[in-house]
Structure formats: structure tokens, C-alpha cells
């Protein structure tokens, strides 16, 4: 229990609040040290200065803006506005040290030819760092982060199956003008048995152990006039980059999920279904959206992903 007696105070002794617990436990009533008080005043001064410099008080549906301190270019005109992170970012992207350095390096790489870029460690180091971002912005929506693609939808850029060719010129062409891939469906031409025969033949090209009879029949359809597959894929099924026709003998499947099938029967069914329906796909052109320099950097990057030719 606390009692409220103020013990007699000798001169110079510290004042107490007068509360006494347990016979002699007292509470001192020391004044604040002066330095503490000045520290408190300093925070008040800081608040006022802050209020003048930065956005601070909400007023109705607006707010006090503070002084205009951030300058940046907008549509070719210089603009100065109050401090906010968006203006700060714009300012930094235009005149920040690293943004400027990146722009300079980008221009330097943009002026190199592909042979120089691909053989230069530093240029490739920049390409890898910079294009990873561009790739994320423009390409990853389809080709996935890192370029792994999705079977049946978007090609894998990490392997060396280059449907439209893997030289820098061909990759650049793909980026600039886009590509239109088309394989006709054979539902009218081939019956389901023939479709399965073609499928067996194609799978046999990829070292799957298929029965001899359907394979032979499938080969005939593939290389003969009935199927005419050879016109795009070639007599030995090696593909034709001018048509965007893939090599069918390397066991890399961009459009049919063969690796994901459980057994031969399912593999044949999947390939046959694909041949029956055909496919048409489009890669958009990027000439309008990206500058030649950015296309150059992206081309070098894609070239380096899987080991371009």
C-alpha cells in the first residue's frame, strides 16, 4: 500500500512525489535534464522544416505539397514538381548515375556488330544483365522466365531446336517481323489408322521402339504424295527452317507432349491427334515496339540461351 506522506526534505535533496510504498520505497520527482528538453524542441523544429519541404498534411481531398524540388523531362519539356517517389524515379531514370551508365553501355553495344558482341566478355555480360529485364517484359509472357517455353503453346528457347534457324540473322528476323507457323490438319486426307501410322513412323525416328508394319506404312505416307509431310519436314525429317518446320528426329517436342505420355499407345495417340488437327501459331513482330538497339541486345541474349549457331 502506498501512503501519501511527504518526508521532510533537506535542502539540496531530490524532491519526491510523496508516495511511499513498503515503508521506505519512494518515487523521485526529478526534473528533465536540459539537453533532453532541447532535443525535444529540435524534433519540433525538424517537423516544421519537414512540413515545408515535403508533402505532409491532408487537406480536404488534397494535401499540402511542400516545395517543388524534383526536376525531370516530360515530353521534351522540363518539369519541376514536389517530392514524390514517382517523380524521383523518373528523375533517376533520366539522370541517375546508373541509368546514365546503362544507357551509355546500351548505345555502345548497339553500335557493335554481332560477331563483336558475341565474342566480347563484357558486352555479353551486359547483354545478359540487360536483356534479362527486356526478356521479362516482352518475351516471358509466352516463352516463360528464362525461356523454357510451354510444350504445345510456346517454344523452348533454351534448347537448340531452332525452328526458324539459330543464326543471329534468323533470330533478328524473327524478332523484327514475327513469324507465322502453319501446319495443315490431315483430318480430311488421312483416316485414323493412317494418322496412327504416321505417328508411329515419327516416333520411330526418335528411337521409340515401334512395330515394324505401321512404321513402314507411315514412312510411305510421310515421304509419299498422300501425306506429303516431306515437303516441309524434308525426306529425312530434318526440318526446314525457311518454313519453320521442325526437325522431327531429335526427340525434342515443342508442340506434342510426348515426354509426358505414359506409354507408346498414348504417344501415338497424341502425335496422331496433332497431325489430324494441324496447328497455326503466330509470333508477333517487335519492330514497332522495340528500338533496333534493344532488338540487337535481345537477339544476342536469345542466341546465348541455348547455344545458337
Amino acid at each position: 500500500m502506498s501512503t501519501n506522506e511527504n518526508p521532510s526534505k533537506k535542502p539540496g535533496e531530490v524532491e519526491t512525489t510523496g508516495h511511499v510504498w513498503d515503508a521506505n520505497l519512494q518515487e523521485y520527482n526529478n526534473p528533465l535534464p536540459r539537453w533532453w528538453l532541447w532535443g525535444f524542441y529540435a524534433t519540433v523544429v525538424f517537423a516544421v522544416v519537414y512540413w515545408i519541404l515535403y508533402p505532409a498534411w491532408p487537406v480536404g481531398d488534397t494535401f499540402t505539397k511542400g516545395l517543388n524540388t524534383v526536376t525531370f523531362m516530360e515530353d521534351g519539356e522540363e518539369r519541376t514538381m514536389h517530392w514524390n517517389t514517382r517523380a524521383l524515379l523518373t528523375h533517376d531514370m533520366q539522370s541517375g548515375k546508373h541509368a546514365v551508365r546503362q544507357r551509355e553501355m546500351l548505345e555502345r553495344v548497339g553500335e557493335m556488330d554481332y560477331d563483336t558482341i558475341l565474342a566480347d566478355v563484357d558486352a555479353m555480360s551486359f547483354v545478359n544483365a540487360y536483356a534479362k529485364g527486356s526478356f521479362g517484359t516482352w518475351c516471358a509472357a509466352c516463352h516463360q522466365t528464362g525461356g523454357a517455353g510451354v510444350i504445345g503453346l510456346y517454344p523452348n528457347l533454351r534448347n537448340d531446336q531452332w525452328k526458324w534457324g539459330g543464326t543471329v540473322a534468323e533470330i533478328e528476323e524473327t524478332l523484327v517481323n514475327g513469324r507465322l507457323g502453319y501446319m495443315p490438319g490431315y483430318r480430311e486426307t488421312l483416316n485414323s489408322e493412317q494418322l496412327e501410322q504416321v505417328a508411329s513412323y515419327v516416333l520411330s525416328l526418335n528411337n521409340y521402339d515401334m512395330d515394324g508394319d505401321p512404321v513402314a506404312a507411315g514412312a510411305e505416307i510421310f515421304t509419299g504424295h498422300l501425306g506429303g509431310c516431306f515437303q516441309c519436314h524434308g525426306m529425312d525429317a530434318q526440318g526446314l527452317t525457311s518454313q519453320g518446320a521442325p526437325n522431327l528426329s531429335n526427340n525434342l517436342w515443342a508442340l506434342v507432349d510426348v515426354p509426358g505420355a505414359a506409354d507408346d499407345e498414348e504417344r501415338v495417340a497424341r502425335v496422331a491427334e496433332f497431325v489430324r488437327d494441324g496447328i497455326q501459331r503466330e509470333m508477333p513482330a517487335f519492330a514497332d515496339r522495340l528500338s533496333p538497339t534493344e532488338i540487337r541486345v535481345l537477339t544476342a541474349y536469345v542466341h546465348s540461351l541455348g547455344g545458337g549457331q
Partner: protein
Amino acid sequence: MSQPLYQARIPIHPRSVEGRFRNLKYGILFLAYAVFFLLPWLRWERETGPSQAVLFDIPHRRFYLFDLIVYPQDIFWLAGLLMIAALLLFFVTGLAGRVFCGYFCFQTLWTDVYMFLERRIQGERPARIRLSNQPWNAEKILKLGATHASWLLVAFATGLGFVLYWADAPTMVREFFTGQAAHAAYVTTGLLTLTTYTFAGLAREQVCTYMCPYARFQSVMFDRDTLIVSYDRARGEGMAGRAKPARDLRSRDERQQAGVGDCIDCGYCVQVCPTGIDIRNGLQIECIHCALCIDACDAIMDKQGWPRGLIRYTSENALEGGKTRFLKLKTVGYGTAILIIGTLLVLSVLHRPELDANVSQVRQPLFVQMADGSTQNSYEIALNNKTQRRLDLEIRVVGLEGADLDLGRVEEIVLEPTQRTTVLARVRYHPEPGGSPSRLPLEFEIVEREGLVEPVRVGSQLSLRP
């Protein structure tokens, strides 16, 4: 009940003193100031890089310490250094009390200089007290003005001196006074000028008693064997307490017969104390163990012709007639820890590879199958040339039979001194049909073609379809 809103600082006007510890303190002060102010001016020849012996180059992310160049990757050295500093503080405090506070702390050193200036301008303690009590007049304005001006000058020199560690010193000084130096230089100098002036000039012992946490936890580092500055109460007070050397109490024999101790209550030990305490009241939080009261008391004892040491560095055990033990589990433990960390730090500094290589495997996707049936993994190899020479590097894959390294068309990897770069590498491998594990260990070996640096091997792995 009226009560002041705040408590003003009780002014302390320490008297000057001469003696062993005062000389030691001057010696340390002189050394510390010499190092702090002159070190940035020391030139140092390097093959590449600035010609300043100690330079903390923030824009280029490099610290130059004589022949050692510290890169951001070596930041863990700082952890070692901080651990050593903390342990050293515990170790020394456990042994000899707050010697850091008393002799080495910046607050103590700079306050000491400020008091020295104050004394040179305003005179000894009585003169200063008189000056502080007298009304404002020309003399007071002049003397106080000169004092504060000299303090500000030292504060400014301190601020500028600190800034010189972060840029080429001569250039910096020239740029500073012609208004061309970086913003940060002016801000830092201004801030340090202000804080030095405030802390060493105005706040002084209040920093130690109110702001510094060290005083608050000194008790957990102290024990009964710790050497502390203490007053020998038994000797000083005797049976009847301390007494001034009045009649019949002048010689030691007379005093001892009267039961009076050796303390003549001259108050010299109180007057010299920079934190304004009376050491005769025992160990106090404000005591920074600067030992000036020892010098003061020794001077008095010498004058009386009595043995020194009425106030001395001693331990509680010794004061009670026991022996001071220094070899204890605590001191041995701290000492061993300091030795171990110190050895590790030195070994790490001496054995730092001159070529820094870091391999990170590309994880999106982790592996990919190639047309020829092989599996390909991609890696980013970050290389950092820490030498002062140009290195011509070659990368190989070792430790995995049949693995092919593909660097694309990159054939030359040349790193200029202190240059960094990242190399893209692809490794192809034909997995054995059926049942290989999902990952295989491999190593990248980076070799300097002319053998200028030791080959570096970095372990990584090759991922396969599980």
C-alpha cells in the same frame, strides 16, 4: 509547489593536474590526434588506384588500407573486427575497468583538448569560476568568445579531417575551399563540426552519464578482481574519519593516534574530476576511470611526505586485504576468443584469393534437353580480379567425365586490374541411359594463362531430369 521545468547542467570547472596518468593521457591523446589528422596525408605507391595510404573509396566500392584492398565481398572481415573490438572491450574492462573510457574514448580525448583550450584562454579553475559568475562585460565576452571560436576551429578540423579519409586528401582540401567538393563532404563536415562542438564543448560529461550506454552496463563486466580507481577508505578515514591537517593533526603519527586517516580533505581529487564526482564516495556510474584523481592525490601525498596510493587502481578484493586474481575463467575465456577470432581474421586476410570466382547455376530452367540427346545446364560465372595486374583467364570444367563446356563465341577472358565481369557458361553432358542421379557434382576451374595467380576451383552441380 513550484518546480523547475528542467534541470540545468551543473557547471564543472576541473582543475588541472600533473602526474603519471596525466602524462600517459597526453601521450595517448597526442598519438591519436597525430594518427587521425595525418593519416589521410600519407602517400602510398600503387600500380593502379589512388596514391593515398588509407582511402575509403565508396563510389568504387573499395577500401584501400596500405597494401590491402578491401572489396565488398570481404565485408565479413568487418564482422570479425567488430567481434574483436567488443571482446577486447569486455576483456580489458574485466581486467582494468573503464580504461577505454578514461584514455581512448573520442569523447574523453576531444573533451580533454577542449578543456585544455579553455584553460589556456580563461585560466585555471578559480579564474574560470570567477569568470562564469561575473556579469557580462568586455572581458567575459572576449574570453568566452575566444574559447568558443577555438572549439569551433577544432570541431571544423575534426570534421574536415574525417572527410579526408573518403577522397584524395590534397584534392579534397582544395575542392572544399573552392566550393567544388561533393555535397556529402560539406554535409559531413558540417555535421561533425556541430556534433564535436556540442558533445566535447557543451555536453561533455553529460554524454558519458546520460547518453553513453557503457556506463550502465559496466557493472556486469566488473567483478571483485577488476582494477578500479578507488579510494582506500580504511587508510583515508581511519577510525575517526578524514580531517584537515589542523594543529595536532599534521604528522602521520599524530593523526594515527587521534584515529584520523590519511585523507586531509583537501578536495583536490574532486576539483580535478572531469565528471565532477567525489571518488571518496565509492565507485559511481559517472566515473570514467581517467585516474586524474590518482595524480591529484599522489601529488598531495608527496607534499605531505606520506606514501602514495590513497587513491589508486586496485580491486575490491585487494581493498579488503585479499589478493587480486587476474587469471580467471572470464579473462582466459575472453582472451582465447580474441586470439581465435584474431587468428582467423589474419589468416583470412593473408589467404584471400587474388581471383574471386563465383558460380551460380541458372535455375529457370534448371536443365534442358538438347537435340543430340545431351542435357544442358547454364551458369553465370562472376569473376573479380583483385590483383593489380591484367589477367588472361581460361575456364575449364573438371570433375565430371564427358562434360562439355560451351562459352559461345567468347574466346578471350581478359580482366583489367580490379575489373569484374560475368561469363555465361553452358555445360552439356550425355547422361548414362537409365538411372543416373538427378544431380552430379562438377567444378569450374579458372586458370590464368600465364600463371600469374593460383588456379581457382569453384564447385557447382549439373542437374539432370530425375
